[in-house]
């Protein structure tokens, strides 16, 4: 279908864009930066903050360019004295109700509000309110909210309601009392928040941040009685570099390993290994289900945000969830069993730290059903990519000057299959590499399943296997997961195997990943660039299938027995149970 094009003039420059484009995006496409605050492309386009105002010839007043559509012959000025004055005054008024503790704020250098103040030339805040006190809400395991820094842009509520369709936060009350909170101002821990952390990466200020667990890691590293083991998730290696000024999509695996070693970890393993185990277990489970008539579609269980969503919103689908623990938890379980036994270390003296793209992992490590038979929790502390970057900075490591390092081999040898876990569709593709080869007896099995790749929210494919057609689906973002589940329940969508990731695009776009200012989204598909780096690494790897990983072959042979066997079940599987959405005792 051909799109109607519209030509207008912005700052006297002719610009041609598709009909329906906003003036703001039209300007940006012509290299003119209209500053913005509440605008988050594709997520929050509501014209609330009035920072992006421009002059349109013939209009009564200044217009918010993020919600003002272009029209033929329109004449726009983005940089007049009137516009600059209006933006400055608006920002000063926003700052009048913002607690400015920039030096000690978690956002510090990444704050879009601070950057905006510099950009608009705010050299004094005439209406500063020095009496604002912190308004901390830190009930949930993954997040800290401080409404004294909130500018009511509603980017967080938009992402929670629209992208994730969870909708646990919104603007409460009215006028000056307006604030972001849960219904009835309940604590976040009391409501059906899934801990995905998408609100944090959407927030332009320090109002939302992950709960910083780095102090626990430093304490473990400083304790000579503890044997501290670390493992980063597949996606962290292609995002960590952004925290040190490297381009989006830079793969920094080697430097990351060196950094972890220099931070003082006793062993630097790779959660990629946990991912490979997940494929072996999930693959065996899927084959068993199709051969013995288990609940289909089988749905992946790697994403703790998705798990919590399923438990709260779709408890009827729990029998469809794979019983596999997530790669993080499999990794931790193996460190505190196999590795501990091999090394002769009491698992109670081991501290397992995971580095995750994810804030929901902080919630997952506390879940009681994850506890091992020896009484240990598989993972002790889960930190995000951003927290690792902070530790590297604090330790004075010049990241881009670090030499390349290698993971410790015992649980540190990965495959292409595990690397792509970090992108939506990656778990599915990794599983298919193993499952199809098992079903076809190895011959002619394809290595790549490109149909499930890419940043589309819902991806489907049908594969003809010996004796059976397998219909698969990979969806990311909980709104998309809900659409697929609705389709499965009403019979309009039929699948055998579904991969769900809570965050749009998968782990590479997780709530614990490096912050990128909203304007970058106008020009860049951030998740796509990060995912491309993973697929590139996959292609370059000598081993690209989980079952060919020599580490796994050794561990299964020496320790676990066969995939899906008794010991594997005890260590690597768990069950999920329905959870209440509302904490009030009600009768509905």
């Amino acid at each position, binding site marked *: 279908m051909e799109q109607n094009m519209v030509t207008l003039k912005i700052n006297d420059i002719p610009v041609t864009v598709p009909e329906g484009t906003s003036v703001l995006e039209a300007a940006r496409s012509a290299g003119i930066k209209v500053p913005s605050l509440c605008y988050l492309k594709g997520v929050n386009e509501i014209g609330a903050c009035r920072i992006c105002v421009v002059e349109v010839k013939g209009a009564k007043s200044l217009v918010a360019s993020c919600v003002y559509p272009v029209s033929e012959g329109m004449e726009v000025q983005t940089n007049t004295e009137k516009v600059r004055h209006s933006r400055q005054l608006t920002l000063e008024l926003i700052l009048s109700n913002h607690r400015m503790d920039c030096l000690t704020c978690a956002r510090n250098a990444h704050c879009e509000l601070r950057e905006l103040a510099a950009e608009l030339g705010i050299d004094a805040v005439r209406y500063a309110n020095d009496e604002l006190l912190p308004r901390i809400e830190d009930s949930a395991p993954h997040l800290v909210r401080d409404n004294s820094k909130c500018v009511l842009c509603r980017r967080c509520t938009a992402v929670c309601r629209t992208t994730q369709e969870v*909708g646990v936060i919104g603007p409460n009350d009215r006028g000056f009392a307006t604030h972001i909170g849960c219904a009835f101002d309940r604590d976040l821990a009391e409501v059906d928040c899934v801990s995905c952390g998408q609100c944090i990466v959407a927030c332009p200020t320090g109002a939302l941040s992950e709960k910083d667990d780095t102090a626990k890691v430093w304490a473990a590293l400083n304790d000579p009685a503890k044997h501290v083991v670390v493992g980063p998730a597949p996606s962290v290696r292609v995002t960590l570099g952004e925290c040190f000024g490297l381009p989006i999509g830079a793969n920094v695996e080697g430097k990351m390993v060196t950094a972890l070693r220099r931070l003082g970890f006793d062993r630097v393993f790779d959660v990629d290994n946990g991912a490979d185990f997940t494929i072996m277990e999930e693959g065996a489970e899927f084959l068993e289900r199709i051969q013995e008539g288990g609940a289909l579609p089988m749905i992946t269980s790697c994403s703790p945000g998705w798990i919590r969503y399923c438990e709260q919103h779709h408890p009827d689908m729990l029998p469809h969830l794979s019983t596999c623990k997530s790669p993080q938890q499999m990794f931790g379980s193996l460190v505190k069993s196999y590795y501990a036994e091999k090394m002769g270390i009491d698992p109670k003296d081991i501290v397992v730290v995971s580095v995750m793209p994810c804030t929901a992992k902080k919630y997952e490590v506390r879940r009681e059903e994850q506890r091992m038979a020896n009484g240990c929790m598989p993972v002790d502390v889960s930190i995000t990519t951003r927290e690792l970057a902070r530790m590297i900075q604090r330790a004075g490591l010049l990241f881009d000057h670090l030499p390349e390092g290698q993971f410790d081999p015992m649980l540190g040898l990965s495959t292409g299959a595990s690397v792509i876990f970090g992108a939506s569709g990656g778990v599915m593709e990794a599983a298919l590499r193993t499952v199809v080869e098992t079903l076809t007896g190895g011959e002619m099995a394809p290595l790549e399943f490109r149909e499930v790749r890419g940043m589309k929210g819902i991806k489907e494919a049908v594969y003809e296997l010996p004796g059976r057609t397998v219909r698969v689906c990979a969806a990311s973002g909980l709104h998309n997961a809900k659409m697929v589940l609705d389709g499965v329940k009403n019979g309009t969508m039929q699948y055998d195997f579904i991969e769900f990731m809570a965050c749009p695009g998968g782990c590479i776009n997780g709530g614990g990943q490096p912050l990128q200012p909203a304007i970058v989204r106008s020009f860049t598909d951030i998740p796509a660039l990060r995912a491309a780096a993973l697929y590139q690494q996959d292609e370059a790897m000598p081993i690209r299938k989980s079952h060919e990983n020599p580490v796994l072959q050794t561990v299964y042979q020496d320790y676990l027995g066969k995939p899906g066997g008794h010991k594997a079940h005890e260590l690597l599987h768990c069950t999920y149970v329905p959870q209440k959405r509302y904490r009030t005792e*009600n009768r509905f």
Partner: protein
Amino acid sequence: MPNVKTVVPYSGTEEQEARLRAVIEAHKGQPGATMPVLQAAQEIFGYLPEEVQIMVAEGLDIPLSEVYGVASFYAQFTLNPKGKYQISLCLGTACYVKGASDVLAAVEKHLGIRSGAITPDGKFSLDACRCIGACGLAPVMMINNDVYGRLTPDLVGGILEKYD
């Protein structure tokens, strides 16, 4: 004035709930259904407790936070039931300049609740209201149908003690 959370236990009847379900059914799937459904809910229950808002959220398949956002935004909605004795304290211009805010503070202190709330025993509810047309008696408050005028903060205790 932010809406104040209620401390009174929910006591909706099956009949009230059935009426609300019928209203929800009639509006389900329509755009902008939240407002009329909440208005009907308030008419049925007299206020909008959490239990009722959950019924609305689940019935219309929208997040509870959205329902609460609307309920706490509009002054026409209340999260509190009315007490056995409803106190309306005038904050209109005449009453205000005659010191009504000090009287309000005295009532709030005496009852231990803020304006917009209800005492845990359900006896008193307190609301600030606009001019009731008795400016000559300013500052004025009403308790159900009784009018009290020319109030000062020290008169408040004696008046409230008359109600059991």
